[in-house]
């Protein structure tokens, strides 16, 4: 079977071309704007929006290095009257005996979420694409969005009804089968899998929607050409559809990596709550910081940890994106 030409394979050529062109033109930005007035113009509103709401706020990050003072209301006050304490606000976290563990848990769980979430939603999208009954497909697409709208608290009750020691369905089944029931809620090691399943079920539907849109963009002529070359159905999916949505998969993964140091606080807090016996495998940075700052703590410390999470996440994206640009430029973020 002839190798199907990937759409956008000219992109890498373009990248090389544009890079050399960039090297040549120095006052490049002004020239670029002049050449692409319209493009820059229509991007302007969103650029302004981001500038105002994000970039203008960044100077305030210095609060992470100050002792919090409720009376410093403006940036000027913060910069001039603030009491600088260096890395003091980070200390409460890094001195803790659990700092390493919660960081590890955050990363570990997030990586699992990304991997399984991507696999399930891509498979879901591919499968849905194969079905012919329109009403079935339409209904399913709506249905799979539903779990996204159930709050984690409700999910925690559902999980409880499955795994509760006395009334849980799972233990009931085990008793019926003659096995001794397990007290799930004091076994830390079973929870990462349970959390992964819950998280995937909740989010896969939304992500599948994204992949379905990507699939919809595939030019039918690609499929037709492949069939003429003798591709069967399975090959069609793996050699045509899948490669063509890979850029989307890569982008989604890169975006998720940016947030990899931020755990899903809502989920963990709702399901695990204050059940300390499960902390070994489920306590994440966000839940730890939440508990730490509950009685003794202030906004500076919260900001300090958030800054830490952001920096690490950014570095990881930076690295991943660099790697992606080398191997698979179509999927790079920037």
């Amino acid at each position, binding site marked *: 079977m002839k190798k199907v030409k990937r759409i956008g394979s000219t992109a890498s050529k373009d990248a090389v071309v544009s890079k050399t062109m960039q090297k040549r033109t120095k006052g490049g930005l*002004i020239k670029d*704007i*002049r050449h692409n*007035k319209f493009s820059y113009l229509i991007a*302007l509103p969103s650029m*302004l929006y981001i*500038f*105002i709401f994000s*970039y*203008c706020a960044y*100077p305030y990050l210095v609060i992470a290095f100050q*002792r*919090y*003072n*409720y*009376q*410093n*209301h*403006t*940036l*000027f*006050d913060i910069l001039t009257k603030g009491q600088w304490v260096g890395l003091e606000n980070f*200390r*409460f*976290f890094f*001195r*803790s*005996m*659990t700092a390493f563990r919660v960081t590890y848990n955050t990363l570990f769980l997030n990586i699992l979420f990304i991997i399984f979430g991507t696999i399930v939603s891509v498979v879901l999208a591919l499968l849905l694409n194969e079905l012919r009954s329109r009403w079935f497909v339409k209904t399913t697409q709506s249905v799979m969005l539903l779990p996204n709208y159930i709050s984690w608290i409700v999910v*925690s009750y559902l999980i*409880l009804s499955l795994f*509760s*020691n*006395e*009334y849980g369905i799972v233990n009931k089944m085990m008793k019926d089968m003659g096995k001794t029931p397990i*007290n799930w*809620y*004091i076994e830390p090691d079973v929870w990462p899998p349970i959390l992964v399943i819950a998280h995937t079920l909740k989010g896969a539907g939304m992500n599948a929607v994204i992949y379905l849109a990507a699939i919809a963009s595939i030019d039918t002529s690609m499929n037709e050409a492949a069939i003429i070359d003798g591709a069967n159905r399975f090959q069609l999916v793996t050699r045509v559809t899948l490669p063509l949505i890979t850029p989307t998969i890569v982008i989604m993964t890169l975006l998720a990596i940016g947030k990899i140091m931020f755990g899903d606080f809502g989920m963990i807090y709702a399901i695990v*709550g*204050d*059940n*300390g*016996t499960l*902390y*070994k495998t489920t*306590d994440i940075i966000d839940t*730890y910081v939440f*508990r*730490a700052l*509950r*009685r*003794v*703590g*202030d*906004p500076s410390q919260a900001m300090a940890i958030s800054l830490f999470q952001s920096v690490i996440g950014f570095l990881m994206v930076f690295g991943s994106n660099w790697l992606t640009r080398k191997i698979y430029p179509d999927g790079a973020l920037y």
Partner: protein
Amino acid sequence: MKKVLSLFLTATVLLSMLAACGADNTTSAPTASPKGIKKSEKPEDVSEAEQTSKAKKPVDCLYVIPGDAPKDLKGGLKAINGKMKEDGVGVSLKMKFIPWDAWDQKLNLMLSTGEKFDMFQVMNDRTSLSNYALRNALADLTKPVDQYGPNITKVNPELAMKSAMVNGKLYAIPAFWNETAISPELTLRLDIMKKYGITKVPETFEELTADFEKVFKNWEGDGKPYFPLLGSETSSVDIACKTFEEWPYVVYDKVFYVDQDGNVKNYFETDAFRKNCENTHLWYEKGLISPDVLTTTSDQHSNRLNSGDWFFISGTIGDISPLKGNYPDITTDDFVSVDLAPEKPYVRPYGARNMNAVPLSSEHPEAAVLLANWIYADQDNYDLFLYGREGIDYEKKEPGQRSPINDPVTMQPPYSFPDWMIGNVNMVRTSVTAPKATNDSLYVLKTDHVVDGYASAFTFNAEKVQTQFTDVQTQIQASIAPIACGVKDYDSNIDEALSTLKAAGVEDLITEFKKQMKEFKASE
């Protein structure tokens, strides 16, 4: 093109200046000359406020509270402001409710950006007063209370006033709404007791255990009357502790054991803890405690209490109405407080936990003081503010009680205000829907068989040992809770638990606590 570009650049620069470094129009000076605000008076300095209070224009007092506004907040406020006007208080009250989910964050925002409000609720169990005070969020109320709040000091014992102080200055108006010498709080159901043929209230732990077993075994109906326990937050189940020879003692922050001689120990190393665990383990083995105790959520816990399917609890019930669903004949007499050692006194662990503070950005810090002073001035004011309008929100039931008039859908009166935020035990009107046992134990100041705890006036500030504090609390949840709830037995598990606590830095905590308490006592 160049024109457009330069315009764009100028606009950007202007915007950034505006957003980031703009003029400060949110003042931070507490008693500086105030900027104009709708209807408020402009006192030049504190001493003139007194004249103002008799003048025509009242001073605004915006009170910020967690929770949800009652249905008829408007009507309630109208009545309150009306009476305050009559009494010449000079304060116009407004209330702002912030939903619980957003309380901490919104409050922080309001304090951080110098937003104008005059009074807010501080819940020490959630965020300690010193947290705010030591970061310059609060106005010093020592002078205003001296000048305008004689009733405040009248209704609050010294113990309560001390708990609202940080470093010798008064930063809040305490809400001394209940008798705090109540632990261990044990409530037993008389109706259940009679139903299962038990003739007298148990007087020892052994009798209690036997009675409980009897009820459990013969229980009719779905479900089981487990001893309701919120396992994940339990560090100690105190049922028979009053009978121990160590009594009286108090445990602060789950870990600081303080006896009446001022000795401070790690509570989990004490014999008292061991004995409590053994008792609880006994109950667990007998099946009186749910096997799911460690995963019970607070909602489930409340639901269990409200369902009425229990014989004995640690704690009390505030309202019997939810129980009427499953137990239609239940009355407020069907509850009794169990005291397993009536000859020994109860201990007061602290003065007040809830209090009302004034942000530094308030332009009239005395407004909050005037308001509180008016509330505590006489019973009619108190009733109006807390319970609403007679005949609309509640009915008076003398002596000292009230019957709330609930809206049929919301199950709350059109206007009412939570006792625990600003109430005072000397003036409270207990509800006829609360068990008599609850009212008697919570809302009556004990005069005998009570002692003030050694550290009752002292508040520990965990800032210097913040990391250890968090880690120890985490480890308590992880390794102590199962032992405390009886799921795991004491002897085989305590050593490991204690060593994890040690690794978490519990020794530093004890040292710091001892140090601060010594300094406090020296300064008294």
